[in-house]
């Protein structure tokens, strides 16, 4: 099948010998004639809706694997991908939407040839994690046994750096029909016409009249996935009544470990965790999960008071911090006064934040969602379309990469064994592999959030005892680190 389809594609598009833009124009012409011949849908093996990290890495994985390179694939994206492709920022400006890529995600991106296309000078590996309880100060230090080797726990990466790198890699291989700046107007089932019965094939209707019939329709289209709605798959969960406040910050220096030993910090406050994650040089990115009211205040503060709140979040007692959230202004002076009465071990908290990049303070609501299943007949969901998690473990994007890796493997197996890659039967392995793994992740993250929301009572000493105990037990700690790094036995 693939050979047949790919032959017809090669006739229409000698993509390998032409640059991307030329071949795209050629493709567009050919498509027009194809479409005008009859109002029949164009037939694809894989149609991926959504050009975010999950969708782009899926198509790149399929195109870069010789076994699946013969498949006819298409990408549908509402945004203008040229903007992502040409994304560029000044070396000391950083986007506020960053993710922590585990070594396992990075290895996958490397295998599909995308890692080299990221702006590597903008990627910051970190080698140590400091996590502590804001109420009791019980602490756990995650570092590898042999700190001298500087083993990487994860790589801090701007999401746009990742997507633009993936796009460049995808463009480089060619062979993906890209439909961007188009809306998905409708998804229907195909028709039974002449010698072809497409009544079980999803047909994606694009604005402008184009129709794409999909052997497999992949929903990489985010939390409000239209593909999921088409497949009538329920997504269940709850809102945390918390917002994640993000910002790109400038620190007084490169961090306590210097250039080669970067540290990530996370403090569990009763309102939610606040995390400071290192970016290249003196920069860091912050994710502060807090109540919608606190988030609104933080966003409204002038830079000087905002910085005071961030520094306070890692240093002050929780009651003091709570009080500062009730002030309408003057946080900077308040912090100076309160710090005189607070004992802080400076080396165990992030260095002082001295600047915030203009326009980088933003917030988004936090929720937990999990689709009942990731597959239907000729439908698969990946990434946020399948699951949304609290950012406290920094695993959202990695879970999506895990989905993609697993789905690409299921598709490869189908192609090598002549199975119809879109059927439920062929997708079962993907669903069983990823549903269980993500279910554990979502559950653990959810319980952690709830556990640390408690301010007093018997749970507080218990959780501190737990944290201290884990900190004292090297094998258990290593286990958690292997999990965070996406190595070891794959639980998450």
């Amino acid at each position, binding site marked *: *099948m693939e050979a*047949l389809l790919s032959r017809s594609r090669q006739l229409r598009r000698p993509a390998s010998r032409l640059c991307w833009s030329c071949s795209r124009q050629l493709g567009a012409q050919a498509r027009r004639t194809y479409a005008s011949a009859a109002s029949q849908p164009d037939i694809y093996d894989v149609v991926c809706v959504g050009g975010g990290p999950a969708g782009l890495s899926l198509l790149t994985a399929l195109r870069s694997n010789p076994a699946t390179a013969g498949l006819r694939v298409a990408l549908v994206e509402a945004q203008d991908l040229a903007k992502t492709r040409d994304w560029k920022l000044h070396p000391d400006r950083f986007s506020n939407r960053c993710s922590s890529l585990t070594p396992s995600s990075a290895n996958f991106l490397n295998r599909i040839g995308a890692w080299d296309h990221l702006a590597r000078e903008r990627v910051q590996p970190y080698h140590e994690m400091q996590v502590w309880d804001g109420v009791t100060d019980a602490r756990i230090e995650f570092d590898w046994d042999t700190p001298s080797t500087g083993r990487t726990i994860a790589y801090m990466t701007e999401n746009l750096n990742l997507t633009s790198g993936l796009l460049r890699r995808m463009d480089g291989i060619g062979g993906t029909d890209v439909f961007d700046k188009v809306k998905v107007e409708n998804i229907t089932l195909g028709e039974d016409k002449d010698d*072809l019965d*497409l009544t079980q094939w999803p047909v994606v209707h694009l604005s402008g009249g184009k129709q794409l019939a999909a052997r497999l329709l992949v929903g990489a289209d985010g939390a409000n996935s239209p593909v999921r709605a088409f497949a009538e798959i329920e997504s269940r969960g709850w809102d945390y009544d918390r917002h994640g406040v993000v910002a790109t910050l400038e620190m007084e220096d490169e961090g306590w470990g210097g250039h080669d030993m970067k540290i990530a910090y996370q403090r569990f406050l009763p309102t939610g965790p606040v995390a400071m994650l290192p970016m290249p040089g003196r920069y860091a990115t912050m994710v502060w999960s807090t109540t919608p009211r606190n988030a609104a205040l933080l966003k409204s503060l002038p830079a000087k008071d905002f910085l005071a709140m961030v520094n306070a979040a890692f240093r002050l007692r929780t009651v003091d911090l709570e009080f500062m959230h009730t002030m309408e202004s003057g946080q900077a002076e308040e912090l100076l006064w309160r710090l005189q009465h607070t004992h802080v071990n400076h080396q165990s908290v992030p260095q002082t934040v001295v600047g915030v990049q203009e326009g980088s303070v933003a917030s988004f609501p936090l929720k937990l969602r999990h689709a009942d299943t990731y597959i239907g007949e000729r439908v698969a969901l990946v990434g946020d379309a399948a699951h949304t998690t609290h950012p406290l473990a920094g695993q959202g994007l990695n879970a999506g990469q895990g989905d993609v890796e697993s789905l690409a493997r299921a598709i490869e197996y189908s*192609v090598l064994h*002549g*199975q*119809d890659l879109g059927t439920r039967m062929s997708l*079962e392995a993907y669903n069983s592999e990823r549903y269980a793994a993500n279910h554990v992740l979502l559950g653990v993250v959810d319980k952690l959030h709830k556990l640390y929301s408690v301010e007093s009572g018997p749970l507080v000493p218990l959780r501190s005892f737990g944290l201290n105990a884990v900190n004292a037990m090297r094998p258990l700690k290593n286990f958690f680190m292997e999990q965070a790094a996406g190595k070891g036995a794959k639980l998450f």
Partner: protein
Amino acid sequence: MVARPSTALLLRRLRGLTPALRRRPESFVTGRYTAPYLVNRDCCRPFSSTGSGSPSDNAHQSTSDPNFTTVSPDEVSHFNALASSWWDPHGPSRILHLMNPLRHDFIRMCRNSVLDAPSTTGLTYLDIGCGGGIFAESAARLPGTKSVTAIDPSPEVLNIARGHARRDPSLRNKLQYLNTPIEQLTATIFKQDPQQQQQPQQPQYDVVSVFEVLEHVSSPAQFLDQCAPFVKPGGWLVMSTIARTWLSWFTTNLMAEDVLRIVPRGTHDWQKYVNEEELRGHFMAGRSGQWAEPRCMGVIYVPGVGWREVRGSEKVGNYFFAVRKTAEEE
């Protein structure tokens, strides 16, 4: 079951051809389990004798008789009844769907196991007893496949197969279904192809597959002799069936059909199962000189896990068997 005279006659004749048959029951059927099933050896169907009461099922029947067929009418009606659920992934054929990838692994293993590097493109397949087309469709989808011809004597099942193939545009021009028993295949192809009518040639294929069929035909040896001419010299005849042991009776009849109900009742007739050494003997001793490179792979179905290759399990349950054609029959 009462042994008929013709059966006994044929038995004697065949035992001369297939010495392996004589060793059959002792090694695996031991102890008290032997009693109900194998106490009288003639009561269980020998490899090449008749199994059903079909009138065409006769040792003296000549293959030149146009009405001769190894197809068993009871079997045809059983599979007709299953036709509509053939492609339901959670229906009665689920276990067959799950087995299908292993068939390709086995064929790949066979083709890669010989030294003269086989071509990986332009392959032609003949799938005998294709049923709803699980294997035929998948073979046609493989990039190296030029064409697949798939035949089955059951018209209802074949209608399902044709209807299902229409759902996949990539199967057009690659997959052809013919409603014919193997005995009339050549005639059917000649009728279709005007070129063949002028210069008739024996149609031959790189891979001739006979999956889960041997245990359903009424005389396996004659049936295999009918299949043999369709294999290209250098090509493979690939089959799969179930070993006839007390354990296979326990797993495929009692457990799979009656207790767990993962296979429709009445699918298997234990007495029709064929042992690996019987097949080996048939090709290597009985048809010596024409066949070489016998290959075998035993597989076991583990509920919740799927099919797994288990070395040595060809002696007790489901297995694949293949031989390569070295020369034409004289």
